[in-house]
């Protein structure tokens, strides 16, 4: 990707001596809370999702502590049930779904396509407020004692039998859904309408392709879960008889509606991470992503097929054997574009100029964990196996490999890659590599034993378990503590770097991409002159691109 005019160094800012950028453009709380700048809104989201991630992790910590011993000896079962429910709700709806799109996507979509902002800046700001409003509802239920239905809200337990704050938690998710829809809508319109001159569809970075696919799922899927949760709330209040068989309803209907969104939601979480990984692999191998068009269309294929597989959550829920067969084969199909992506990323390294800086460590970690998560996903989609492992720790391990091993690795890799762009500062190279290593090792130690536990038959959501499962549970808890350290480290050094970190320069990685053709941190209007794009996204060996990216300052560790 190339611009006809490169950015001239800007005049020093009047007071600070710095170039004007989006961070020093205005000061004060008001300038943040009323901002319409997508970059500032990304920072607001970063703060919010980090807070929810910390809360969700705290619940995970308490769950793992309870599971150190077979007896339920730390909490009452009611408390334990609330802990895993709140862990799931907070992590899925308030961290994993918004994390990459709302933080990195918000920051980068306009920068990567050469736009000044998203198409609807006010809606973008509104989405952050809506997200927090939803979060407040959910926090309210937590403070008042929590919810104990599991994040899946299965009926008729959730509509009739649970005595906890189901309605406020469901409303929290309902409201937060609108912030997703706002963001998705904004991305779709922005990507269609606001690309810089010369930025054709096939010159878009893969990050943009995957965000486009994600936005489609968000806009089409979120309304379904919103209505479903509203139906749960309505049945609790009005006894409508939608899901409760005692009132003439159908409890399995809920599962169909819920998974119609919540399976595609997995792709809402993983597709943006795949987009991040494509960027990182290209930048740290300094060459185009192998099979660019295939990878781009694989994202779209995943988004489409992802809507056709929800029934694989109900193989043992009384679904007909023929329906189960169809859902099984469709689930196999959705694995193929994912496998193709893995092969393409791996091939990108071939004849590359591979540099193992922190973001790349996260990206390679992602590929390893996602491969295992994806393969075990195909295993559980196999009918004969799912009958045994459904609702066991095998499933827990599988989806954590995708959501934590996949999405969070991608998110962390992305944060480390674009942090110099976001903050203009460098973070400590050694510590950050250490954190990537700790996350990778801690993650495997936490979740690999759970595959074994699951095949042995340990059901999920058990507060107490038979004693022969203890050793594997202790390993898992030990791994979780390592994982915790790996997650806490970046929090400290990112904050530290904002004040004490060395200035990063505009393009510390020597990467190509429109976002690196503008100062770090970028000015409020993103680009000083509208960029004109003449090349594909990762053309490192095009001479003028190469000349521009290999400034002497443009290097890290």
């Amino acid at each position, binding site marked *: 990707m190339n611009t006809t005019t490169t950015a001239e160094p800007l005049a020093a800012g009047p007071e600070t001596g710095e170039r004007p950028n989006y961070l020093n453009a205005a000061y004060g709380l008001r300038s943040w809370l009323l901002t319409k700048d997508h970059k500032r809104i990304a920072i607001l989201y970063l703060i919010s999702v980090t807070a929810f991630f910390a809360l969700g992790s705290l619940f995970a910590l308490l769950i793992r502590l309870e599971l150190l011993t077979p007896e339920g000896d730390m909490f009452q079962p009611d408390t334990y049930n609330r802990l895993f429910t709140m862990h799931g709700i907070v992590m899925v709806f308030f961290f994993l779904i918004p994390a990459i799109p709302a933080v990195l996507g918000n920051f980068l979509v306009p920068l990567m396509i050469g736009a000044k902002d998203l198409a609807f800046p006010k809606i973008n700001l509104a989405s952050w407020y809506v997200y927090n409003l939803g979060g407040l509802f959910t926090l309210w239920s937590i403070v008042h004692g929590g919810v104990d239905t599991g994040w899946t809200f299965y009926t008729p337990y959730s509509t009739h039998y649970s005595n906890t704050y189901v309605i406020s938690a469901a409303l929290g998710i309902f409201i937060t859904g609108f912030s997703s829809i706002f963001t998705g809508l904004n991305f779709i319109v922005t990507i269609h309408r606001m690309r810089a001159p010369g930025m054709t569809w096939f010159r878009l970075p893969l990050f943009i392709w995957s965000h486009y696919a994600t936005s489609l799922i968000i806009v089409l899927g979120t309304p379904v879960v919103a209505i479903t949760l509203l139906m749960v709330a309505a049945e609790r209040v009005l006894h409508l008889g939608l899901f409760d068989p005692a009132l003439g309803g159908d409890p399995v209907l809920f599962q169909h509606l819920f998974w119609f969104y919540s399976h595609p939601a997995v792709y809402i979480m993983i597709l943006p991470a795949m987009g991040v990984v494509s960027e990182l692999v290209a930048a740290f191998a300094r060459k185009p992503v*192998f099979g660019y068009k295939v990878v781009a269309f694989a994202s779209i294929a995943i988004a489409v097929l992802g809507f056709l597989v929800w029934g694989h959550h109900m193989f043992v829920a009384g679904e007909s054997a023929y329906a189960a067969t169809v859902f099984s084969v469709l689930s*196999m199909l959705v694995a193929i574009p994912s496998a*193709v992506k893995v092969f393409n990323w*791996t091939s990108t390294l071939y004849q*590359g100029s591979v540099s193992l800086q922190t973001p790349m460590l996260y990206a390679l970690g992602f590929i390893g964990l996602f491969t295992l998560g994806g393969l075990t996903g195909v295993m559980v989609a196999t009918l004969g*196996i799912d009958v045994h492992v459904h609702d066991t720790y095998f499933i827990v391990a599988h989806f954590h490999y995708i959501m934590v091993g996949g999405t969070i690795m991608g998110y962390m890799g992305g944060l480390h890659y674009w942090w110099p762009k976001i903050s203009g500062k460098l973070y400590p190279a050694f510590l950050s590599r250490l954190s990537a290593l700790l996350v990778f090792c801690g993650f495997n130690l936490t979740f690999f034993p759970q595959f074994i536990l699951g*095949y042995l*038959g340990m059901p999920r959501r058990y507060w107490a378990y038979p004693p022969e499962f203890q050793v594997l549970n202790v390993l898992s808890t030990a791994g979780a503590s390592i994982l915790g350290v790996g997650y806490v480290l970046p929090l400290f050094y990112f904050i530290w770097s904002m004040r004490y970190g060395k200035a990063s320069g505009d393009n510390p990685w020597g990467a190509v991409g429109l976002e690196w053709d503008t100062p770090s941190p970028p000015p409020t209007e993103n680009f000083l002159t509208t960029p004109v794009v003449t090349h594909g996204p990762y053309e490192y060996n095009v001479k003028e691109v190469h000349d521009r990216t290999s400034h002497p300052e443009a290097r890290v560790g």
Partner: protein
Amino acid sequence: MNPQLPLFPQSASTMAPQVDALFITWSVISIFFTVLIAVLILYFMARYRRRSPDEVGQEEKPALMLEITWSVIPLVIALVMFAWGARVFFKLYRPPANAVEYYGVGKQWMWKFQHPDGHREINTLHIPTGQPIRLKLTAEDVIHSFYAPVFRLKQDAIPGRYTEVWFEATKPGTYHLFCAEYCGAEHSKMIGSIVVMEPRDYESWLAGGPAGKSVVASGAELFQQLACQTCHLPAPGRPARAPRLEGLFGRQVKLANGTVLTADDDYLRESILNPAAKVVAGWEPIMPTFQGQVSEEQVLQLISYVKSLSAEGGTEAGGGTAPQALQKSETKP
């Protein structure tokens, strides 16, 4: 800490080794691909490490054949494994003809079982080896899930309908029984044992327990108590006010709204608890509901009794063949 570290579950049913074979094959495939990717990454990492800060990678041409190859190979593997998995699933799904029917009812937080001879158990299920067993499941409150890891089997027990699971135990022993679907506070205490016994031991265990009435006999008794026979099985010479029930189970029934369905367990259950929902063509909807008057187990007993009537092979039974004099048009002059 408990020193045991099992890595693979015991197996005790005819189907368990088939599930294991599928699982082990998939595991080998998964390990192969994971190691392949890991080795390639590590090799490329070392072989193509950046040697100077300005170095860039060498771009390849798009390789369509390569893309097709690595799409088709996983696709073929996935489809073969899908077909194998579906085969195992259909075997798990379809009980053999000689399977004996047991009943299981899940409620917060216990499993209630009934043997064909009427024996009842809570949280423990004794079964003989070498005998295919069909376990018909339902739930009284929320969704539960019957899970026997040694049989590699799981089936949700859903309130308001029947589901079924079958197995043939092969190895005597006492094994875990779990509830696998989260069902509230004591979910993790809704556990028990499956005790697999040699047929001889099972017989003597049955003989040693409190003598119960068989499920069918209990159903027959309940049928009398609830006075079902007044309308459904009237004494000879008296007019029937409802369809006769002999031979009903498994037969096609024509409803008042014109639809035709097969009289299965779910239909019988609904007709007892909510009779107005599906009225047989030609009959008045006069039957009262028995919702709240009979428990899930009693409904199961009644259904067993109705099925036993079929087994005796009543030929002139059922709504469609009710005597003309008793049809709606003529009872309402």
